[in-house]
């Protein structure tokens, strides 16, 4: 069972109170973007064995979207953070580095 702490209301919510929103930090290419960029936005997803970044919504709770950094192998959660960011904050990156030295994910490390 995945347990994530919502950064907006502070509740330690278990998976059934949350709604998964897929991969985090996607750039939403739309009209006037190249076909390649649009295709990438629509279809290209990370499928890592290890460190991963996701969007979650505290659906049965405060209703807010937030981000989570976790390990897909162990379900270990490195941290949750605000939705109002386009990249993981430094404290989250540091928390991951402490547990998974040398990690990379897309352009982040």
């Amino acid at each position: 069972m995945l347990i994530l702490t919502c950064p907006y209301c502070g509740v330690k919510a278990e998976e059934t109170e949350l709604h998964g929103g897929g991969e985090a930090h996607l750039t939403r290419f739309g009209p006037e973007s190249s076909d390649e960029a649009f295709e990438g936005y629509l279809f290209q997803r990370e499928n890592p064995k290890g460190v991963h970044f996701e969007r979650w919504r505290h659906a049965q709770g405060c209703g807010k979207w937030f981000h989570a950094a976790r390990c897909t192998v162990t379900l270990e959660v490195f941290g949750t953070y605000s939705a109002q960011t386009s990249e993981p904050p430094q404290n989250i990156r540091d928390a991951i580095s402490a547990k998974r030295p040398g990690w990379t994910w897309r352009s982040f490390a």
Partner: protein
Amino acid sequence: MSEPVSALNRATFDGLAHVQEAGLQGMITLRGTVLDEGFAKAVSDVTGLALPGQRGVVSGGDSTLVWMSPDELLLLCPHGDTSDRVAKLTAALGDTHALVVDVSDARAIFTLSGPQLREVVAKLAPVDMSPAAFQPGTVRRTRFAQVAAAVWLSDAETAQIICFRSVAPYMFALLCNAATPGTAVGIF
């Protein structure tokens, strides 16, 4: 003018805990930035209550303010005072970016009372109901089986549970079932 009627007309059940649909309750949803000074002052002036902090519940007189999210509060007041409170809040908030809506008829409220109420709630919601983790003054928005709800303790042996009016019969059935005599788990 038609007579207002609550969802289950104060239906009751006695078991591990006393379950009651609490009848007509004025409920006003307030949306705005809770930490914004103008918003906080307007709400405080009208309600006479200090604003609750994160997941807080503040009661005084005939009113209760419940923290629902960083930009939402729920004000409980006597049912007959609802439209007056909405008007006063709307006037006090003026140009502040905020929303005030009477949601009394969209919700139902239940009271669960007795020394074993923690047992009953814990059967239905994925919430740590131990006295160490859950005390009066804190609200928990969660689910009760399959429906969204908010629960808080108004005192050590009384819980208030709010859900949508459309699922009130389901909520009452859940609570009665979880409170069936002889089904105590005895964990708290």
